[in-house]
């Protein structure tokens, strides 16, 4: 018999592990991956594979040769970053740009801060924003979705390859909302994902499936996504009630762009979001408000990425400001 072990309590450990959490998220992203391949064809598959592999590669390279520490590329975190980065770019993006994006995401946004758990910003989003600013043309020329099999009414020609949000933003300069809406596919298309856009953001239904899975598995909490989506609905709803000609209805905002992807998969990133429930709610509301500010009054048609990154920067402050409720605290104050 070997020596007895001595350690502090507790002497048992639950069955949760970093790997389990990460791969649950990966599984939750599978429906959206399948839909993206279905709508954008093998190009989508190419983007997904290149992005994931290069993220894993850069993480391995940096851990092995720069940090010279243990290599933990199979914990799933780099894979998530890779898939999320792919979800956030158009399917016709040149391969080398994807690799640059992966390098920025892993090298700059994650490893330079010390790796898993230390990054203040969501790595995939940093990569995405870097690409958006550096290669605006490639990043915003969306391919038209084509079905891999079967057929569905193709998009109205007026759309070109633009995303609904981009189309709306451009069109509002000399037109009104009801006019533009008539030229766009109906909201059912938005829900299923048969619209222009980045790989992963188009299909709301696939993303919701994954989100429900994550909520059931308790990998994410309800606070951030619900506060985020709720604040978007309230904010756009108020504007829409004021002037339906200028502002589009909340449902449209919900179903287009990266809102669902952002709310469930990126704002909920554990590392860069606040700890306490109230902090998470404030975080979600902040994301929602900034998203709509950018969508309606900003220079870009879409504001989810910027909103989440800006709120990431507030996370440490929120952690300080909004503490979880202490047992016996209410009575202490009285």
């Amino acid at each position, binding site marked *: 018999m*070997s*020596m*007895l*072990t*001595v*350690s*502090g*309590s507790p002497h048992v450990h639950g069955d949760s592990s970093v790997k389990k959490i990460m791969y649950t998220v990966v599984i939750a992203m599978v429906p959206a991956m399948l839909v993206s391949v279905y709508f954008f064809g093998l190009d989508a598959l190419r983007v997904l594979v290149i992005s994931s592999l290069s993220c894993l590669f850069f993480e391995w390279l940096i851990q092995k040769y720069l940090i010279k520490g243990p290599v933990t590329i199979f914990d799933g975190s780099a894979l998530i970053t890779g898939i999320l980065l792919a979800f956030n770019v158009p399917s016709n993006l040149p391969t080398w740009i994807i690799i640059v994006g992966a390098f920025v995401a892993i090298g700059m946004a994650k490893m330079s801060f010390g790796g898993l758990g230390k990054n203040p910003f969501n790595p995939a989003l940093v990569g995405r924003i870097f690409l958006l600013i550096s290669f605006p043309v490639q990043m915003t020329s969306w391919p038209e979705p084509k079905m891999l099999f079967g057929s569905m009414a193709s998009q109205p020609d007026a759309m070109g390859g633009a995303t609904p949000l981009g189309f709306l933003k451009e069109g509002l300069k000399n037109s009104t909302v009801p006019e533009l809406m008539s030229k766009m596919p109906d909201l059912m298309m938005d829900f299923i994902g048969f619209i222009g856009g980045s790989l992963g953001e188009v299909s709301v239904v696939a993303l919701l499936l994954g989100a429900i899975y994550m909520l059931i598995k308790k990998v994410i909490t309800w606070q951030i996504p619900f506060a985020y989506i709720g604040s978007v609905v309230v904010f756009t709803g108020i504007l829409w009630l004021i002037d339906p000609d200028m502002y589009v209805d909340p449902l449209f905002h919900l179903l287009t762009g990266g809102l669902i992807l952002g709310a469930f998969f990126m704002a909920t990133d554990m590392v860069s979001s606040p700890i306490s429930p109230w902090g998470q709610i404030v975080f979600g509301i902040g994301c929602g408000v900034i998203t709509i500010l950018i969508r309606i009054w900003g220079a870009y048609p879409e504001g989810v990425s910027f909103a989440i990154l800006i709120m990431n920067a507030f996370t440490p402050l929120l952690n300080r400001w909004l503490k979880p409720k202490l047992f016996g605290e209410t009575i202490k104050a009285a």
Partner: protein
Amino acid sequence: MNDVMIFSVISLGAIGIAAAVILYFVAQKFKVIEDPKIDEVEEALPAANCGGCGFPGCRNFAEATVKSANESKHIEGLNCPVGGNDVMTTVAAILGLEVEESKPLIAVIRCNGSRENSPQKVEYDGPATCAFAHNLYSGEGGCQYGCLGLGDCVAACQFDAIHMDPVTGLPVVNDKCVACGACVKACPRDIIELRFKGPKDKRIFVSCVNKERGGPAKKNCAVACIGCGLCEKECKFDAITIINNLAYIDYEKCKLCRKCVPVCPTNAIHELHFPPKKEKPVKPEAAVKEEKPELPASKEETDKGGVPPEDAKPGNQQA
């Protein structure tokens, strides 16, 4: 185009000048008048901010010395262990005072419970910090006074002067030690002591802090001090005292005669940097059995070495 440039230059320049003027007056208004000697003293200090002097940093030490010199015309009790005599002489010169030379000190590890001497009985699994392990249990080797070997002293040292020996599992002090005392404070078991560095680094000390009776002490560690008192009898200079079954050599009184070293039945007394003796004395094994008479646990025993902290027990009733 030129207009734009000229306007830019003029406006920026004007802002710059205005800001400079404001800053100048603000600086004048909020100027803190300080004794210039503080800066001079601080210059002379090693700037390690190690806290060895008892102050948070070198600046605070400089302030304290200047204050002391101004108010009471001496700087006794203030010493920079890192800079040693040289620095203190310089500081005294700046302040127009003289200092007595103090003998240089060095950190000494008073435990020799290596893996060989004190074989491992259980395995520790937890954070590598002595402070926590001390609260948890007595130690892998079973000695509740001995070194836990998790390196809080190494982490506390800012001078790269203390390292863990991977073979023995004990820390080793090297020449870089400046006797700042950080490791002494870090050690939860008071094993490390600052002692005279000695002529040519020659030192003699009891490498054990075990206050248990001979039997239990010896059971856990082959080289534990068993408090037999042979060294005390041997010492001609009254430098050795035995309290709580533990011999202690007063470094102020010790003349480094080395007589006590061979008489120790457990080889607990260590000599460092002496030339080797001609013949190695045979270990008097018989003396080991000569245990001290039983003493009831005295009050001195309840210092932080032997007894776990009061809150070692779980704080709440739990079923």
